């Protein structure tokens, strides 16, 4: 039982007409490895397989992928958490174009992130040292700033699949709220007026796939609810 059956999504647009699944047998020697370790062992068998990975400890957000149907970071996902019947199926994050094998084109994801202007904007005269914030105001940013932009949430969201060019997606909206909630940011009105169309925020139907997959345990659905509340208060 220590031989794990792994099926990996392969696609190289230079050689393949269509994506295909390649099967591997991996001897885990009974250890509860991380999925990334298994990928490294597969690469020893077939060096043509490509995937993104960097920090291998859930900080950089490079190795988001779909493991047995659920998005997550392969470096912090132990086999015991995903493997069923000794089988592991690895696919790229769904909904975005595949560049090759497990590597996806994240341009649309980054475009939506850029659109919410993810930086502090303040027109007031800068103080001599720094802009101060009360501990209570700082607490409001907890659960928001920790996002590592791995795209596990947005690529598990059907609303983002159907309208990745118009719906900001859970990752972008979590960051949108991070700046709306920041006591030092003075551009709240401008930010809200960029979000009041029917797609950017309101395409969220609250199904909470994002909450289900976030490797950092964050809650984009709650943040989206707060943005919606701000928008309604702003107009009603």
């Amino acid at each position, binding site marked *: 039982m220590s031989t794990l059956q792994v099926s990996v999504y392969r696609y190289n647009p230079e050689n393949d007409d269509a994506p295909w699944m390649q099967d591997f047998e991996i001897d885990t020697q009974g250890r509860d490895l991380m999925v990334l370790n298994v990928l490294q062992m597969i690469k020893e068998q077939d060096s043509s397989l490509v995937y993104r990975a960097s920090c291998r400890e859930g900080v950089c957000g490079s190795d988001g992928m779909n493991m047995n149907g659920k998005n997550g970071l392969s470096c912090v996902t132990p086999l015991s958490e995903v493997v069923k019947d000794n089988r592991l199926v690895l696919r790229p994050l769904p909904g975005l174009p595949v560049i090759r094998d497990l590597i996806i084109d994240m341009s649309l994801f980054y475009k939506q992130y850029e659109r919410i202007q993810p930086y502090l904007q303040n027109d007031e005269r800068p103080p001599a040292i720094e802009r101060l914030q009360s501990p209570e105001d700082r607490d409001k940013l907890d659960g928001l700033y920790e996002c590592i932009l791995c795209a596990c949430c947005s690529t598990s969201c*059907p*609303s983002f699949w*159907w*309208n990745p060019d*118009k719906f900001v997606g859970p990752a972008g909206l979590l960051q949108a709220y991070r700046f709306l909630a920041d006591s030092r940011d003075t551009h709240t009105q401008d930010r809200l007026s*960029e*979000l*009041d*169309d*029917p*797609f*950017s*925020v*309101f*395409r969220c139907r609250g199904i909470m796939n994002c909450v289900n997959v976030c490797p950092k345990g964050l809650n984009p659905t709650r943040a989206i609810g707060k943005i*919606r509340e701000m*928008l*309604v208060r*702003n*107009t*009603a």
Partner: protein
Amino acid sequence: MVTNILNPGRNGVADWMIQRASAVILGLYTIFMVAYLMFNPDLDYAAWSGLFSHLWMKVFTLLALLSIAAHTWVGLWIVATDYIKPAAIRFGTLLFVILALFVFVVWGVQVIWGV
């Protein structure tokens, strides 16, 4: 920012509030109707047309009818923009929906005030 045929300058906040308000009205109308039918098990034509002869009942029913139309319009617009990608087919579908809703409302008004 986002423009769409049949929906120039559509606003997400307004859509969201219409959806909630119409749902509340439809909820109240449903509760009223279920309660009325439960407390009148031997309902006959005279009692039924008597209920709808009151002006407040006509107004309440018309309000529910308009709520159905608004709720359906917002909801189906969202479904269509999610799932129907070719603009011509989406436009045709939404045109059919809005025309059908218009006919139902006018027809409904005639029925309610025909009592």
